[in-house]
């Protein structure tokens, strides 16, 4: 569904969410992952944040002023994944002993360190090494409950930024140089094997920044392996070439199948979502307020998922009932499928390409959508694909919901897909 409210909220930086899905509870508060955005001043931290999460056009970022203080942004309104970004001003010296860095690194799951590839690379690299050393010395990189030793390691992500003027070869060389230099510096303190640091070449003028952020976010999703597995099954059964699970508002992909991501395809899928949203905005004007009578079985409104979420407090009690409901739902879809009725009530979009491929968009909930590339000949059986997508939708709603109360392992990846062979 194209949720205009959610779209508007995108621009409210610290606005509290009113969506029940985002309900603040003490439990959740504790688990909200924190991403720390660091780097020398003018390395492009603020621009990255604005382009990715506030949809600022890249050429407008030159108007942004430098960030003087620590800025916290709650991204929960604009993204399916709830997290906060803390932007660390470049000029702030946290090595200063009077500086309270405990609060800053508390519960910080990811550090994104931005290196401006055009300016002061050596300074930036040595500052990165110093930062890592500092974190290691103070043991900030172990997150979680220290009493029962269930800690997770902090992720280190390095964005080699502003590479828009470099060739692919130039990017590779620069990345190799920087990786090498960082290792050397870390080995001075015998830290070279302590951390697995990931490097990305990024620019706000193309999709590389979105790709990099996608990978950063994916590492924060505990259920990522399950998601990938589900998507692989979906690909296999529906004869899809490539599928992305998109966070529609940020255009980050939360998950994808295990086949490699081609930049072109990701870009096209992302543009597809942008176009659907823009287009829908034009023709939904004035209709948002009108409450059309909605039949209960008619899920024009994303009812299943949202209802589940609304009920999440009573979840433990209702669990069995919920599962049954889902099962009966799939029975219904199954039945209607057989009687060849159109069951496609969720928001969807199809683009046919002259290459005999089809781009297909299928809404999962207000925040997530599946976008995939399918050969046209395999898309003619659309009912089957819709059926599979619907089952996938219900499966992931269970994964994310149940993980809330750590039950996800019991029911996690149980879902049923049909392929043509089975149907015959």
């Amino acid at each position: 569904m194209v949720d205009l409210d959610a779209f508007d909220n995108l621009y409210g930086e610290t606005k509290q969410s009113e969506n029940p899905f985002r309900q603040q509870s003490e439990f959740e508060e504790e688990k909200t992952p924190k991403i720390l955005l660091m780097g020398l001043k003018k390395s492009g931290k603020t621009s990255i944040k604005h382009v990715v999460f506030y949809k600022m056009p890249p050429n407008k970022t030159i108007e942004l002023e430098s960030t003087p203080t620590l800025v916290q942004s709650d991204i929960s309104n604009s993204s399916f994944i709830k997290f906060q970004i803390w932007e660390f001003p470049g000029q702030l010296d946290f090595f200063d002993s009077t500086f309270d860095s405990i609060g800053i690194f508390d519960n910080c799951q990811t550090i994104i360190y931005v290196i401006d590839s055009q300016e002061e690379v050596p300074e930036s690299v040595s500052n990165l090494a110093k930062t890592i050393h500092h974190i290691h010395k103070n043991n900030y990189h172990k997150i979680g409950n220290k009493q029962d030793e269930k800690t997770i390691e902090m992720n280190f992500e390095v964005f080699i930024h502003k590479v828009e003027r470099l060739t692919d070869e130039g990017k590779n060389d620069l990345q190799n140089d920087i990786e090498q230099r960082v290792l050397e510096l870390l080995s001075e303190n015998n830290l070279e094997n302590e951390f697995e640091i990931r490097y990305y070449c990024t620019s706000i003028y193309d999709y590389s920044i979105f790709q990099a952020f996608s990978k950063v976010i994916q590492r924060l999703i505990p259920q990522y392996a399950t998601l990938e597995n589900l998507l692989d099954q979906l690909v296999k059964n529906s004869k899809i070439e490539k599928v992305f699970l998109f966070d529609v508002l940020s255009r980050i992909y939360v998950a994808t199948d295990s086949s490699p991501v081609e930049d072109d395809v990701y870009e096209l899928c992302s543009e597809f979502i942008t176009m659907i949203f823009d287009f829908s905005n034009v023709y939904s004007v004035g209709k948002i307020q009108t409450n059309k009578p909605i039949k209960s079985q008619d899920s024009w409104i994303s009812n299943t998922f949202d209802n589940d979420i609304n009920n999440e407090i009573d979840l433990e009690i209702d669990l069995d009932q919920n599962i049954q409901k889902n099962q009966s739902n799939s029975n219904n879809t199954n039945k209607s499928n057989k009687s060849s009725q159109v069951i496609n009530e969720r928001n969807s979009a199809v683009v046919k390409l002259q290459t005999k491929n089809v781009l297909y968009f299928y809404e999962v909930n207000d925040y997530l959508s599946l976008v995939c590339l399918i050969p046209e000949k395999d898309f003619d059986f659309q009912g089957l694909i819709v059926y599979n997508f619907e089952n996938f939708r219900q499966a992931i709603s269970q994964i994310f919901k149940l993980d809330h109360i750590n039950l996800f392992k019991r029911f996690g990846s149980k879902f049923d897909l049909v392929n043509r062979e089975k149907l015959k």
Partner: protein
Amino acid sequence: MNPTKRKILLIGRSGSGKTSMRSISWEFNFKFMDCGGQDSYLENFFGSQRDRVFRNVEVLIYVFDVTRKDTEKDLNYLESSVFALSEFSPESKIFCLIHKVDLIPEEERENVIESYKEEIMKFLSKFSEILENPLKVTCFGTSIWNETLFLAWSKIVYSLIPKIQLLEEHLHSFCQICDAEEVVLFERSTFLVISASSSKTYQDIHRFEKISKFIKHFKLSCNKAHSPFQSMEIRNRFFTAFVDSFTANSYILVIISDPQIENAAISLNIQVARNHFENLVQKTRGNDDNALVI
């Protein structure tokens, strides 16, 4: 080149913004003639090359730079154009684009455009008695930074299509037959609006320009990914939209708001209408091989 091929003349002094305006490029069944803006070129057009330039003109677009105060020279060139046209292409239409209006403060913009228009029309009215054919002149205030240029170009394209009223009538009945909320016809290469029929009133009067921009942008993305765009369907709880290639030189957009109408039915309707409109277009074109065919 076909010597009788009709053309669109684009005239304006240097720096008036002709070239940037052509970023809305188009490939019609028309010769598009961008006359250089340097004074020496212009003198030539009105001198030795006069009959070559002004013969077989369908449309003259004269571009004024709204920020220039010395309009006299422009009006003189316009005068020469008007006389040349009445001699060599008496049926032609004239469009005056008062360009770069974005440079005028917004609160004054409308007044400035109006007085500019008045000045042009007053100037031209002097000749109406001398000329044999009545002048067909339309003025627009335009800017490349907003929808105004798109509207002006759409009007120009509209004026180029023979028997457009007949087409519109058929489009209107198609809209009713499909139970559509809106049907829009876009020119294929430019995605300018040719014609539209709506069964309800919309608040957003700039929606065509927006849709055109979105689809054009997306088509470019498709080309970039080496998979050119063919057609599209969007379905949500408010509407179902279809964008598909229609006649040889057009795309059609159909908006349906009744969820009971099946996608397949709409596709089929578009399919059937496509043949009907192709025939219609062939008929309206008649024996005129040079007419703009949509």
